[in-house]
């Protein structure tokens, strides 16, 4: 499944029709907060960070369920919060759609009444009609009269989503909405959400700690750590070009090597590793001699057979197998590199290798595609 990212750039839209969400928060008392993010209309922004990083706090503050010392939240032309000018709009008036981690359905109300209760300023008949159509869009037709405790986790999640959207919200906020359902249901829900959101022209924020979820659902991502937003950009840009070593580690990158910029070529840059060994990687604008952290994408690594032609845009590295674990239809392999006394971790499809060649201690050569090597400036780390 692949969704085409529809990123509405804030600068490209005319101010009068701008329905983007702009958030700046600061807090010194309690857990510190220094957050700045923006989400365009129709854009799904993933707010990513480890647990306790403050991502839920940010979401709750946007919704109006929590207050901070200093902050500014604007959605479209409406100012939701501006501590400088003492402006504060209550949670009820903000009209956001929110899906909670544990769905938070009203336990004593039927499915359709759960949705109806969130619809405002309509006649009872209209409300019923709107609720039914949203339940249809979330594949819940036929279950309208059930109580929440008669629903599966996935069904509860669908009702929660229908309730959040039925109010015609100015923004959609999703607080780890998939954390409580099983893997199989999750995949189904991803698909349904991806389909549903194409018709939504409002800012959408998805809080998660699952990078895989981000790649499947979001257009852009904002990384948050210890209450601070570190980097915001398109999912691809942040994943492949993290701005610092901390960000690279938070994103789960494991193959990080210290190096210096050695030489700029036409399309590639040569980097100097520890003991004289050099690597060709993607071009950088950093000066020669600058200390960098090299990030090697696992997908750029292959096992080098002597027979394979050595192509110009790749690096051949010598090492020995440290360990190899068979995981489903893949091998997870750790190779100890001779030159830098560090390990490289990557995955290879089961059918591509003979298990006898990956016994611990066996000498092995690996090929690393230059395009999969990205330099992070050390000074920014």
């Amino acid at each position, binding site marked *: 499944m692949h969704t085409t990212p529809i990123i509405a750039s804030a600068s490209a839209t005319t101010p009068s029709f701008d329905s983007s969400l702009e958030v700046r928060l600061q807090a010194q008392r309690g857990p510190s907060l220094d957050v700045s993010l923006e989400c365009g209309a129709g854009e799904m922004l993933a707010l990513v960070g480890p647990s306790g990083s403050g991502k839920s706090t940010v979401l709750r503050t946007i919704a*109006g369920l929590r207050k901070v010392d200093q902050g500014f939240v604007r959605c479209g032309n409406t100012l939701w919060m501006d501590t400088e000018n003492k402006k504060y709009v209550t949670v009820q008036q903000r009209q956001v759609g*929110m899906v909670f*981690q544990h769905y*938070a359905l009203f336990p*004593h109300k039927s499915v359709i009444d759960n949705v109806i*209760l969130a619809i405002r300023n309509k006649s009872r008949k209209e409300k019923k009609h709107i609720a039914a159509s949203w339940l249809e869009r979330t594949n819940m037709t036929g279950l309208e009269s059930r109580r929440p405790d008669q629903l599966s986790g996935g069904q509860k999640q669908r009702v929660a989503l229908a309730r959040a959207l039925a*109010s015609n919200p100015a923004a959609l906020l999703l607080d780890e909405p998939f954390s409580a359902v099983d893997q199989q249901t999750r995949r189904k829900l991803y698909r349904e959400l991806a389909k549903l959101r194409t018709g939504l022209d409002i800012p959408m924020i998805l809080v998660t700690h699952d990078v895989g979820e981000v790649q499947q659902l979001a257009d852009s991502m904002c990384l948050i750590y210890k209450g601070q937003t570190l980097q915001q950009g398109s999912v691809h840009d942040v994943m492949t070009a993290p701005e610092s070593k901390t960000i690279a580690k938070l994103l789960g990158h494991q193959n990080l090597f210290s190096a210096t910029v050695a030489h700029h070529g036409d399309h590639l840059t040569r980097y100097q590793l520890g003991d004289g060994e050099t690597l060709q990687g993607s071009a950088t604008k950093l000066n020669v001699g600058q200390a960098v952290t090299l990030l090697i994408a696992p997908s750029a690594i292959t096992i080098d057979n002597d027979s394979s032609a050595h192509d110009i845009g790749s690096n051949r590295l010598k090492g020995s197998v440290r360990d190899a674990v068979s995981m489903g239809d893949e091998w997870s392999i750790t190779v100890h590199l001779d030159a830098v006394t560090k390990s490289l971790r990557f995955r290879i499809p089961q059918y591509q290798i003979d298990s006898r060649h990956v016994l611990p201690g066996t000498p092995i050569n690996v090929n690393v595609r230059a395009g999969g090597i990205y330099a992070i400036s050390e000074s920014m780390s």
Partner: protein
Amino acid sequence: MSPFFVSFKLALWTTLILLPVGMLLGRWLAFAQFKGKAWVESLILLPLVLPPTVIGYYLLLVFSPDSFSGNLVTQWFGQPLVFTFPGLVIASIVVNLPFAVQPMQLAYGSLPQEVREAAWVSGLSSSKTWWHIELPQIWQGILGSATLIFSHTLGEFGVVLLVGGNIEGRTRTVSIAIYDHVQAFDMLSAGWYSAALLVFSLAALMVVRMSAQKSKRTH
């Protein structure tokens, strides 16, 4: 007026006054976090562990026309409260406070915070959230609280004797009447009164238990 009438009148007044009080206090204690919360909770629970005669003694002090508070009370009600029905109601309220607050606090405490937040996000004001979301889920607590207050008031003895005295038709409740009859070796009357209280209390408890089971089945 029969002691039954006095008892039921007292129980009704106590329940009607204490239910909203218990609902407010229980809600406040379930949701609010503040310094000294343990103190407030202990004070409310105190009548549960204190001998009723001790409470009765202090209430007599408070009601005494010689004291400052008694003076205020006398001005407020136009008469001293000792040995009167209004005095009995106030004493009964104090004694039953824990039975009013505790079930409500438990009921409110079992409401997930997320559900109330979902209601606010959906645009429901605090009062609408209370009416549409909180109240339908805490009625178990309300019923439990009402039953406890009502039955406990019927059975209260120590405080009633100290504060109300034993005035026929005004402050003589069933439990006092039973005591009186036993003192006068009228075991038959005492037996009838006791059996009536027993049947009523059992029936009240059954109603609560059965409604709890029924709601478990439908929820």
